[in-house]
């Protein structure tokens, strides 16, 4: 199978492919939708297009129509800054921005005039998907994929897949959401789409009302689910965790709540895809995974305690042309690990980046705001572990002599932080200290405390 339409046509037409609160599309209707829009598709055939910040359902429908028809699709989530978008458009040589209203595909030319040449023609009905990494520490990198490259390990099994109804809470423009979309598509399953603006109870009611029995989310999202009464109405057979460290606490809590479900935590990256999944219900992964086998991706722990992975095919590059892998074929994941009793545990990010419920925080950014307040001589921002969010931002600060009223200063600092930082970046705890430890090179110590 080369593209999404090939896989759609392998599923019985009457089966429901995707639903949200108001709409429902069967696999047959998805095939028809492409037919109905064939004139517009012909006009942009072989071009490069962008889907920018549209709703998740709209994204799903456009992708299913255009995969295999255009040369390239750039996935542009709503949270990408518009100044970066322009750069992406140039890099990816985008010709059209596409959207869908009342099942009508429309395109807006960004790069006139579009002329089909050998250079921009479609090769063997395979469309390039350009997916941004989730990096919030710097400009997200663009990673090229195709339907084929992302579904290599997934088998089309429309008989087994019939019973699954996947809930989608991840961002569909990013690898994690695309993974859920593809899993549901390859199984001929139903995808239940919760749009970004839905509240937690709206999401869970939508899932329960549509018989959702499979859900993939971050550990932080799962903790929030467990805090709701609506979770009582969910009957899950598949529970998947990804995007953050899955600790024993959340794994056990999920087992207690959804005892009959198969609980899996997945380690994946936009660059490499799914590296491995863990099904034994315990945190970390067996150290035997570090030994390469036919079916696994080669991994090692480098001298800094960071997990490095080396897929068999290391020819892939970032869209910019920069290499992803080092000379030995490894990519440094930046994830610190520790081996204990033949099990490998994740400790956090080597860069010191803090993952607050799936949102990454660079400590330096928070430190700059803290120091800018004028109340402090020094500031050190780091992660503390937290059972609800995985990690929280904590700051050790040294007050200047003129500002010694701790309570007053803390509240003023917090106010300034709130005005200048997103809520998850504002320090949860501020500790006034006399000294801040430095490394031998005179830098603040990063990593896990």
């Amino acid at each position: 199978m080369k593209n999404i339409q090939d896989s759609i046509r392998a599923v019985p037409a009457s089966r429901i492919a995707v639903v949200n609160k108001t709409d429902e599309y069967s696999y047959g209707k998805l095939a028809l939708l492409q037919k109905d829009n064939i004139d517009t598709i012909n006009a942009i055939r072989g071009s490069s297009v962008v889907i920018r910040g549209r709703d998740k359902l709209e994204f799903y429908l456009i992708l299913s129509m255009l995969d295999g028809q255009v040369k390239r699709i750039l996935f542009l989530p709503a949270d990408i800054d518009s100044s970066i978008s322009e750069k992406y458009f140039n890099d990816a040589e985008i010709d059209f921005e596409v959207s869908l209203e009342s099942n009508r595909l429309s395109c807006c030319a960004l790069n006139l005039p579009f002329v089909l040449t050998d250079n921009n023609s479609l090769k063997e009905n395979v469309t390039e998907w350009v997916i941004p990494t989730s990096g919030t520490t710097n400009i997200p990198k663009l990673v090229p994929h195709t339907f084929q490259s992302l579904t290599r390990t997934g088998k089309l099994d429309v008989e087994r897949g019939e019973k699954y109804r996947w809930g989608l809470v991840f961002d569909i423009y990013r690898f994690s959401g695309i993974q859920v979309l593809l899993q549901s598509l390859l199984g001929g399953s139903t995808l239940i789409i919760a749009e970004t603006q839905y509240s937690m109870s709206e999401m869970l009611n939508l899932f329960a009302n549509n018989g959702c029995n499979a859900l993939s989310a971050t550990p932080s999202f799962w903790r929030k689910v467990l805090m709701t009464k609506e979770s009582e109405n969910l009957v899950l057979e598949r529970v998947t965790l990804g995007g953050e460290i899955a600790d024993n606490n959340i794994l056990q809590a999920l087992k207690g709540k959804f005892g009959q479900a198969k609980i899996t935590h997945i380690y994946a990256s936009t660059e490499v895809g799914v590296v491995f999944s863990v099904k034994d219900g315990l945190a970390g992964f067996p150290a035997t995974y570090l030994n390469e086998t036919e079916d696994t991706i080669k991994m090692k722990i480098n001298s800094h305690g960071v997990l490095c992975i080396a897929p068999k095919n290391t020819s892939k590059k970032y869209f910019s042309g920069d290499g992803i892998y080092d000379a030995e074929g490894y990519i440094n994941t930046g994830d610190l690990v520790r081996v204990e009793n033949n099990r490998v545990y994740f400790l956090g990010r080597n860069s010191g980046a803090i993952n607050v419920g799936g949102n990454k925080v660079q400590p330096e950014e928070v430190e700059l705001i803290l120091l800018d307040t004028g109340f402090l001589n020094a500031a050190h921002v780091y992660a503390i572990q937290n059972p609800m969010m995985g990690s929280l931002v904590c700051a050790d600060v040294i007050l200047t002599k003129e500002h010694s009223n701790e309570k007053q200063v803390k509240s003023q600092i917090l106010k300034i932080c709130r005005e200048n930082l997103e809520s998850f970046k504002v320090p949860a705890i501020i500790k006034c200290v006399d000294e801040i430890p430095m490394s031998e090179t005179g830098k603040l110590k990063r990593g896990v405390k």
Partner: protein
Amino acid sequence: MIREIIKELYLEVLEQTGNELQVLELVDEVVLLESGLDSLGFAILVARLDERLEFDPFTIMDEPFYPSTFKEFVDIYEKVNPNK
């Protein structure tokens, strides 16, 4: 005692995160995620309580459980309290 400390810090975190109480009073049946604090706020509350009480019930519980009402939240702290 613990209930009062929880209430006090709850209100502090509410202020710290720039939120407002969405119910008249913090009584037993209040649904946590509808009370004014979001999940980040609760995470901060748990961290602040850990700082004050020097224990975090969520990491020492034998059977992990996530509360949905204020009563359940307080109960967890009272039940697990190692200093009682």
